[in-house]
């Protein structure tokens, strides 16, 4: 009980902080958001998720409010911390709908929490345009829960892109065919590793070193030492934020000489270049954006003005885009009729900060960024499944 009370108090305090926006004669519309503020995924949510909730509300209210059927509403957010615990996510959604009586519930954060919460969103009939879920099961998911939409892609297309990028580098003569690949022993890392191994073999690569390490491993120097001993031409890690940082730091310390260095989640975080500075040059990572495009640059500028932090170069823009799709659909339908909103999302194409998004028959967004590369202090998209603005891939030189 104690634990719950403390969390709720914290959530209330945070919600109160947001309520400070003066609302004039307009009606106020409560919007619910639930994502980790504590627990293992809190660090990621604090970069990619929460600032976008703040920015979106500030943007909508800055325009005057959300226009629904002749009325204009000022938005007000109720935020709940799910402690990175699926059970808490579900409880928070119930609470938002039943007790707080919100009309709009934003999607949760991360693949696991979104999948866990999909049934409860479906039961309330809420449109759930996920922005941080990567899954290959969009077909099955949309059959079971027609209210769920996937925007961030899946393991298969991501792996295919990474293989394509490496093959391109090899065919150009920038790297050989020797590959070292490691993964974090978690659903995310294991799925991608299992996809990637046969795919690289089929593309003619030779796996000279592979291993997995437990989630939360503090010391990755044994892994990097072993990688170095195998002297690969390219290094790939299906990693999570703390290990992405640790692997990169060790690679710099050990002076791991490879022509391609790829780490997964958090490579696209501003904190990555904040920490490694010039050493990030030509590091490859999962995600990417059209960093030179005007839509992203405008968004990044507003993001920094409103939240005081830079967006990341992968999920941030997608999170904001999913809020935009919801906002546009509600305004187009002109009421809070959820079935009509879901129908509108299915049927139309939306112009968002990431570019146009149009869902396919399985509620899946087929065009997303898969691989990016740090070039001159900016993480630019180098491969996607149909997005504009990809830049040329560079060979990785020595660590600076």
């Amino acid at each position, binding site marked *: 009980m104690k634990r719950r009370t403390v969390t709720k108090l914290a959530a209330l305090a945070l919600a109160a902080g947001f309520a400070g926006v003066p609302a004039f004669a307009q009606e106020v519309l409560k919007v619910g958001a639930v994502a980790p503020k504590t627990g293992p995924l*809190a660090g990621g949510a*604090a970069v990619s998720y929460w600032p976008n909730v703040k920015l979106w509300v500030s943007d909508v209210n800055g325009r005057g409010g959300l226009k629904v059927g002749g009325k204009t509403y000022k938005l007000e957010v109720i935020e709940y911390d799910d402690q990175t615990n699926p059970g808490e996510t579900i409880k928070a959604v119930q609470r938002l709908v039943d007790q707080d009586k919100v009309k709009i519930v934003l999607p949760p954060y991360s693949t696991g929490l979104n999948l866990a919460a999909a049934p409860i969103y479906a039961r309330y009939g809420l449109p759930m345009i996920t922005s941080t879920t990567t899954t290959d099961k969009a077909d099955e998911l949309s059959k079971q829960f027609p209210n769920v939409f996937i925007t961030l892609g899946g393991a298969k297309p991501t792996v295919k892109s990474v293989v394509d990028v490496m093959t391109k580098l090899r065919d150009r003569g920038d790297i050989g065919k020797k590959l070292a690949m490691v993964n974090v022993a978690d659903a995310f890392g294991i799925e991608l590793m299992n996809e990637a191994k046969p795919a690289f073999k089929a593309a003619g690569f030779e796996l000279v070193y592979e291993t997995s*390490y437990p989630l939360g491993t503090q*010391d990755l120097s*044994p*892994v990097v030492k072993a990688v170095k001993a195998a002297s690969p031409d390219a290094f790939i890690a299906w990693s999570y934020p703390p290990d992405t940082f640790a692997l990169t730091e060790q690679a710099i310390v050990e002076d791991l000489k490879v022509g391609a260095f790829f780490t997964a989640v958090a490579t696209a*975080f501003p904190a990555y270049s*904040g*920490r490694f500075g010039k050493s990030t040059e030509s590091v490859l990572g999962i995600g990417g954006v059209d960093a030179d495009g005007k839509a992203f640059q405008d968004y990044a500028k507003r993001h920094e003005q409103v939240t005081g932090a830079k967006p990341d170069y992968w999920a941030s823009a997608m999170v904001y885009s999913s809020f935009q799709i919801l906002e546009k659909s509600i305004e187009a339908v002109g009421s809070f009729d959820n079935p009509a909103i879901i129908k509108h999302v299915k049927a139309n194409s939306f112009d968002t900060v990431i570019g146009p998004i149009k869902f396919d028959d399985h509620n899946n967004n087929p065009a997303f960024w898969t691989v990016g590369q740090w070039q001159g202090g900016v993480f630019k998209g180098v491969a996607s499944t149909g997005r504009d603005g990809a830049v040329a891939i560079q060979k990785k030189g020595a660590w600076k």
Partner: protein
Amino acid sequence: MDVVVTGLLLGGTYALIAMGLNLQYGMARIMNLANGEMLVAGAFVAFWFWTGGQISPLLTVFLVAPVAFLLNWLIYVIFLRPLAKRAKSRGQLEVDAILTTFGLSFVAVGLMLAFFGGEYFSYSYLSTPVYIFGDTYGANRVTAFLAAVLICGALWLWLARSRAGMTIRAISVAPESARLVGIDVRRTAALAFALGGAVTATGGSLISTFLTLDASTGVIFTLKALVIVIMGGVGDVRGTIVAALLLGLLETFVARLIDPGLTLAAAYLLFVVILLFRPQGLFGRPTA
């Protein structure tokens, strides 16, 4: 050879994480579940000073240690002394302390979220290679190891040789009898608790130079510290050092020679084996 050095470096890190808890649990008899949060707070201060003013974490510790000492002293006096006063037995004090500090850990996480935000704090400090016996190691890890040697050595000398250290050991062994020979048990326990907090926060500042932390990662360190303290024997500085080094060496051996996926399994296997054959820990005294 590089396996041994890497293992020792990791062991040094573990000693930094666990030493403070050993003082708090072993000497002041408070099973502090909010120990990890103190570590994260120390790490954050180091991060803040480094990104804000390029002040070296090695200097920051001289600010972190006294502030953490004072803070922990206050925590002890306000929240924990009443528990120690009314507890009729050691068992009751342990249960009360666990519940209280469990609650405090949530308060601490909430406060840190409010002040620091939920983002990862990570920065690069001394991430340059150092050559030992022809192999490369991160300079920040070597620095943390040297600091661990310094801190643990100083603590051990102080506890073993000085009069103040002796009084602390006395209240650890026999709090009732210690009073009879004129030791102010309440003050000495507060001192041990505060000292433990200061050591933990200092450790946090040092390990933040190579680990990536956020406001809610404290619990991971509390668990690790708890395992090490219990393995080494509650209330014995030597035990904590030996257990920490053992764990570091074992994890590195397994990671390099068998499989990195088995490090956790190996660590807990060692824990279970030690508990089976020496339930009081490597250096612990058997409880009557």
